[in-house]
């Protein structure tokens, strides 16, 4: 569902992503770990076609993102580290707007159902987003993914800055999305959440995917050791 074939990106001579090979299937949460500047965000931007690859191919649902940018975006939902919505609009109105951009028309009731599924409390749904916490905004992002039945979720450090309860809620939502069949790529610094939520874990260092692990095969402390070892390289 999410595929990188020898994907590379170079900025002014420095390599941000180096010959990345990645294959993420349906119903899979792939957690991409790495220090700042390891190439995680660039990888996600390459899948979003926000930046063009220097070489290699990025594919979503079998389609090259550079030649089919709108078709591939139709299949995915992107949640950045700090999901910003239109502050003067309510959660319902924001959801309706972003769904409208994908050609999905939601009435108020339908929008409320999706927001409920994402765990956004009832009394907040018709309030302006300017009063929302980060966790509440992330939930609107998940509601968007549910409403659009997205096959792919690209998440860039979505839990950073969330309190443990909100982070746990978010992880549960991701698991729910996985069970619905979504392929999820999540860049994160949170080793604990990666181990708990992820199906597979990839470690990036200096643009390279240096390690790939199955979450079920390792313990939290093993993951930490492996990660720190790679960071010393």
């Amino acid at each position: 569902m999410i595929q990188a074939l020898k994907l590379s990106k170079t900025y002014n001579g420095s390599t941000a992503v180096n010959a990345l090979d990645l294959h993420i299937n349906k119903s899979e949460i792939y957690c991409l770990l790495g220090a700042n500047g390891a190439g995680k965000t660039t990888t996600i931007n390459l899948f979003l076609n926000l930046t063009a690859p220097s070489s290699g191919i990025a594919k979503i649902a079998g389609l090259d993102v550079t030649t089919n940018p709108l078709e591939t975006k139709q299949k995915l939902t992107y949640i950045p580290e700090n999901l910003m919505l239109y502050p003067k609009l309510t959660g319902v109105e924001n959801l309706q707007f972003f769904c409208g951009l994908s050609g999905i028309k939601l009435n108020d009731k339908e929008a409320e159902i999706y927001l409920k599924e994402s765990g956004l409390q009832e009394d907040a749904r018709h309030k302006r987003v300017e009063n929302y916490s980060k966790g509440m905004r992330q939930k609107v992002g998940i509601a968007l993914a549910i409403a659009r039945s997205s096959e792919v979720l690209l998440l860039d450090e979505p839990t950073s800055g969330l309190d443990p309860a909100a982070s746990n809620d978010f992880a549960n939502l991701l698991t729910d999305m996985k069970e619905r069949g979504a392929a999820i790529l999540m860049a994160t610094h949170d080793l604990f959440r990666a181990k708990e939520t992820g199906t597979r874990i990839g470690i990036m260092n200096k643009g390279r995917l240096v390690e790939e692990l199955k979450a079920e095969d390792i313990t939290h402390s093993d993951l930490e050791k492996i990660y720190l070892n790679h960071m010393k390289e």
Partner: protein
Amino acid sequence: MKDLFLFEWRHIRNSGSFLGMLVIIPLLIGFSLHLGNERVNQQLETISQLREMEETFYYDKLNELKAIEAGEAEYNAWWQNPANPLVLAQFNQAGRHVFLEPKPLSALASGQLDIFPYYGKVTLTTADPLRDNALENPFMQVAGSFDFAFVLVWLIPLFVIVMGYNVISSERENGTYALLQSQPIAIKKILFYKLLFRFLVISGLIVISLILWALVYGINVFSISGLQLISIVLLYIAFWFCLCAIFNLYQTSSAVNAVGLAGLWVILLLVIPALISLIVSTVHPIPSRAIWITEQRAIQQDVQAQGEELFDLWLVDHPEEFLEGDTPQFYQSWVRRLVWAENIAEREQKAERIFEEPRIRQSEMASRLRFLSPPMALQTWLERKAGSDAERLRSLDQELKRFQSEWQVFFLPRFYRLDFFTPDEFDLIPRPS
């Protein structure tokens, strides 16, 4: 598109600047049309008063003549004789006014009316434009005229800039750009629809306000000229929205966009017109007004000095027009004065060419260059539609001179022959077309 429009509506209805515009734009348009309408009514009133004065004068003279012929009245001096062509063509309130009547869309632009008069009076010796008191109003001199043309050309672009300068840049600054970029729709398309909606809202507000206020003040905007006006208004608003779109396409901040667009406003409305004015007056300089006044005085002194000589020359050329023998004193003196006046007018007309020719060339050059500034081109267009452009107002001079010729052709031969009027002939006195 519908969803984007709905979203934009939800977005701008919460914006204070838009709510302000909802009130300010109709008020500005209403106030400008009110002032324009007042100005036109004042012109119409002036025209009506002067026409009435003219009619009363000739009506009174006709009644005086009838009374004299019936032996019910008499006159004591030659200038009181209502049958005398000179009395009917030259003295006191005699003469006809030539007017440039307001056009149907005159209320829209006062144009050059504060500089050029819209009427003048013709007698045998004068064909001078006259003024209302507008020029003497000191506040008018300081503030200029507040008309619809000013609102449209100068102020509306500022509202458009407020509505359009940050359509995409604000998305970047508010952090929503990343999410927008991940949507299955091109950013340029979003920009287009957002600006299109804002364009429709602003132009709808302006056009509806214009139509409603025009209906209040009895200005016919449903004519061909009115429809042309509405089309031009829409084009002008679209022009400024296009500039906003160009700025939004570049990845600049809202502050840079605002400053850039305000800079363009200054360039298009102030700098380019000033440059055009500078270029035109440098390439085709007009001699100083002082030279013209000196020239006029010189002509008058020259004619005065040559007095009898000029009259003799005229006699040689027009022997049949002068009555020899026992003629009244006023006849002798007034034939001379008319000959001298004609001579002065001819010489002044020749001398005026020195000033008129560069002015025409200036006007032609400015006319070609003004397309460098679409706002100036629009201002000129509006003035033409309102009939307050310099070209039309300057045509008053020609119209006055043309009618003076007609006036002289009618009256002078009768005066030279001392062919006095009968009551039946009053209807033959010429009127401006």
